[in-house]
Structure formats: C-alpha cells, structure tokens
C-alpha cells in the first residue's frame, strides 16, 4: 500500500529525515515511536504534502503511485489521511461546511453525485457518535474553542467521514486524559478493517494498550533504528530510548 525507500527530507538546509525505509500493507497497524525531534511528525507531514519540507532523495509510492508527484488534495482523495498533532482552528468555517466540502470533493473524484443535505447530516451524526462528539459541534467553527481532547476527537471524526485507506495519526494521544484517550482509540478500532491501514505516531506505550500495533518502529535522528513487534513498545516504556539508541 505504501512503500518508502531511502527517503531524505530537508527543512531549509537542515536534514531531518536521513534515509527512511518503510513498507505498509493493508490490514496492518504500525506504531512509530521516538524521542522529540527525531523526525516522526516530519515523516507524516511530508507524506501528506506539507510544502515547507523538501524531498532531497528517495521515493514514496502509495497504491503504486508516486506520492511526491501529487498535490496534498490528490493524495487525500486517493485515501491518505493525516490526523494532525495540532489541528488548525478556522474561525468562520463551520465543521459541517468543512466536511461537506471535503466529502463532496472526494465523491466528485469518484464520479459520484454530491450528497443531499439530509443524507450528509445523517452520515455526519453516525460518525460523530463513533467518537462521542456532541452534536452541537456541527455548527461551530472548525476547532475553534475546542479543548485539546475535542480537537483530537474531531480529527478521528473527520477520518471516519473520509474513510481513508491509510491514516497517519500524529501524536493523537498527546494532551488527552485517559477517558478521551479511550474514546479516540475505540474510534480508531471501530474504523479498522482488513482493507485499510493505520500508522500511529506516539511517544508513549499508553495509546498502544488500546490500539494494538502489528509492527513498531523506533525513529532516531531521521532514521528507523529498530523495527519489531508490539513488544518493542513495552521495551521503550520500560527501558527508555537510550537503551535502544546505544
């Protein structure tokens, strides 16, 4: 589904990713762990198409297509999703109008007619229930005045609406209390099928108690230094990154 080969990425003159290799197949859940500044978020952002990064070497193919030849919206329409670590606030744009625009663009891409307002609202209500989001959020500005937990729920809700093939969740657990963490994780588990795949970027083992990964990677200084099964997360938790780095 996703194949990354020897990926090098710069921000300005600074090299952030220094040769990443990663294969993700459908039905898998990957976890990417690593200390601050190791390049976890950069990897997710560059795959989603954030323009501030420069790809200086290597390749990434999604569903057989060259990811870097596509605009961010084309990647999204092909089924790539990024759950933001810091979801963006957009005052004046309501959640409902935001999602309507996104869903209908996706449908246009699949040669489907736009959803009627009634159909759309029905789907929206169903998906909001998955993350136990209050219906009043529909008419509110995108992420405006949302708490940290509400913003993360909103990311998962958007993911539920768009039904991506591959979703990167960038530190979706940061800033969440235990209850919110459980709701978010349950949301992800409900959306998991044998056909899609998830990459969960996290600092902590805690989220991985709820979303159980098949494969765990540790990134350090822009390279994947260890790849193993879910026991690697426990090892990080118990012995720290230093132990793996050295």
């Amino acid at each position, binding site marked *: 589904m996703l194949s990354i080969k020897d990926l090098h990425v710069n921000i300005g003159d600074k090299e952030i990713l220094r040769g990443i290799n990663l294969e993700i197949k459908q039905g898998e859940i990957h976890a990417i762990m690593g200390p601050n500044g190791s390049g976890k978020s950069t990897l997710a952002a560059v795959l*989603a*198409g*954030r*323009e501030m990064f420069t790809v200086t070497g290597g390749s990434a193919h999604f569903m057989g297509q060259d990811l870097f030849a596509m*605009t*961010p*919206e084309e*990647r*999204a*329409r092909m089924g790539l*999703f*990024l759950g*933001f670590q810091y*979801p*963006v606030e*957009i*005052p*004046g*744009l309501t959640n409902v*109008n*935001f999602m309507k*625009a*996104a869903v209908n*663009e*996706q449908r246009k*891409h699949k040669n489907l007619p736009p959803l009627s307002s009634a159909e759309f609202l029905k789907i929206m209500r169903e998906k909001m229930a998955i993350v136990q989001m209050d219906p009043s959020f529909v008419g509110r*500005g995108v992420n405006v005045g949302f708490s940290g937990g509400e913003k993360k729920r909103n990311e998962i809700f*958007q993911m539920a609406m*768009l039904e991506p093939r591959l979703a990167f969740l960038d530190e979706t657990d940061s800033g969440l209390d235990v209850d919110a963490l459980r709701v978010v994780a349950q949301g992800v588990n409900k959306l998991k099928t044998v056909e899609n795949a998830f990459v969960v970027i996290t600092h902590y083992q805690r989220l991985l108690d709820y979303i159980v990964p098949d494969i765990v990677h540790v990134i350090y200084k822009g390279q994947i230094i260890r790849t193993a099964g879910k026991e690697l997360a426990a090892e990080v938790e118990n012995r720290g990154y230093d132990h793996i780095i050295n």
Partner: protein
Amino acid sequence: MTEYTYMPEVRRVFSCTVPNANIRQVFLMDGILQDPVSDAGGIVLQKGPDQMGLRLHITGDHSDEPIQIISVRSEDLPQPLEFSTSWELAAGASAQVIVCDHTLNEYLYRTFRFSQIKLGQGARLDILFMQNEHELSRYCLDIKAGLDRDSQLDCHILSLYGGTIQNKLQVSMPQPGATCNLDGLYLADREQAVHYDIAVRHLSEGCHSQQLFKGILDNKARASFNGAIYVAPGAQKTQAYQANHNLLLTREAKITTKPQLEIYADDVKCSHGATIGRLDELGLFYLRSRGISLAEAQMLQQMAFVQDVLDRVHTRSIRSRLEKMVESRLRGEFTRCSHCTMHCC
C-alpha cells in the same frame, strides 16, 4: 423560503428576486422615485427636493416589513448624478431598509448620494447598503446620521462591485443612551478602489458604538480605511470599539488603514484594532489534506474571514442571500453581472 420575482413593465430587463415575501420594493430610476408611498400604517416615502432622491418618514414599528430601495442607473448618455435621500424615524419607530445600487449599462456613471439619517428618541433603524455596480462606475455615498436618546442605528455596507466606491459615514450621538453598530465588507479586484471614511462622535454619556469592517483585495485593487472615534468631554461611560481587518491576495494589492481615537473623557471603554494579512498557509494545508482543492480551500478561507461581518445582518433570509452573493463575487462570477439580470439581490 418564499421567492417571488418583481418584473416591472416599464423598467426594461430588471428583475430582483428577494427572499422575503413581505418586502416592499421601491424603484429609484436615475435618482427619480417611481412609486411614492403613503400608507396608513406610518410609512411615507416621497420624492425629495427638485423631484430627485427620496425622503422616507416612518412612525410606528415596521421592523418586520423591510423596505427595499432599488436604485438603478440606466441613462445612455450619463451625466454625473447627485441626489439626496433622507431617512427619518419618529420617536419609538423602527424600520428595516435595504438600499441596492445597480447600473444597467456599462457606461461611466458617476453617482453622488447624500444620505441623512435622523432617529428620534428610542427609534431603531437597520439599514443595509448593497453596492453592486460595474468596472467603470464611480460611486460616492455620504451618510450623516444623528441619533437621539436611546435610539439605535445598525448600518451595514456591502461594497460588492464597482470601479471606485467611496463611503463616508458620520454618526453623531448628542443624547445619552444611543447605540450604533456599523459594519462593512469590501471586495475589490483588478484595479478597483474602495475607500471608507468613518467618524463616530460620542457627544453624550452612555452611548455605545461598535464597528467591524473587513476587506478582501485581489490583483491590483486599492482600499483605504479611515476610522475615527471622537469622545467628547463629559461623554462618560462611553463604549466605543472599532476593528478593521484586511486580507490581501496578491503582493500588488494595497490597503491603507488608519484607526484614530480621540478621547476627552476619563471613564470610557474604547478599543481599536487593524490588521492586514494573507491567507493562512497552514490552514490551507489542513483543508487540502482533507481532499479540498487549493482553489476551494482559498475560497473557504475567504468566506470564513468575512463570515462575522455577514453574521451581523440579523434577518436570516437576507443574510443567506448575501452569503451567496459574496461567494459568487469571490469566485469571480460577477464580471458578467454588470447588467444586473442575475437576480443578485
């Protein structure tokens, strides 16, 4: 939503679909009032001096029956046109007025409209100016408003399309307890220019004023905003707020914004703020990462930017009509609209 079309026989191809069934439409053709009104309910609408312009006098509560003045310029050999309109509300009266300015041809029209607003004690006027002309038109609106004790003026100006639009608005509050809410939205592209000159004078105590003006400028458009708030000695307990925010879509677009506060009383709350910015990169990426195209993301961000100005239009049906018009204006669909057959108000 009830819609009906007004197709006056004598007035060539002009139709105006308004979303309110109970709206009263009156035409002002080249400055001349077509349908004087004098009804028993307290609305008197007649021609002004020299048969030009109009005078509206209102008694009683008419806030639920909006009056729409459709002012159209249509002459084939246009001369500069100057006329005055006056809006007078008796004590305790209330009214909602929509003034739409259009041109039927693409000639160089120059229009100077002087407008006087007089609100009696406790009167309430909600007035909306829709400026929708064409590339060559030169339009000047000069409003002077006097507010009596405890009266309220809500004035919205929507500068949608025009070659050069100049809006002057002076509000005086010589009696205590008056309120004025002024807001405006200006959209300009190519080489269009829009100028706003606002002065709010707090001359007595306990008056409130609030201003919100926003603009989006594309291509080589120019705009200026001068906003003065004056608080006279003794005008204690004044509350006066002003905000002007601008979005520039290109490097060539220019805005000059000059907020001014002059305060001679010491127990007041006043603030002003002006910003000039561009579309937000991160916000655009967020929208695009959900599959929304760049053009659509830019559009959504612009609509989001102007939303709080539109939200100040209280009547829902009129507001949603304005939202649609602003959207089609921002999408560049207005260039063929100079003949006003697009049912745009």
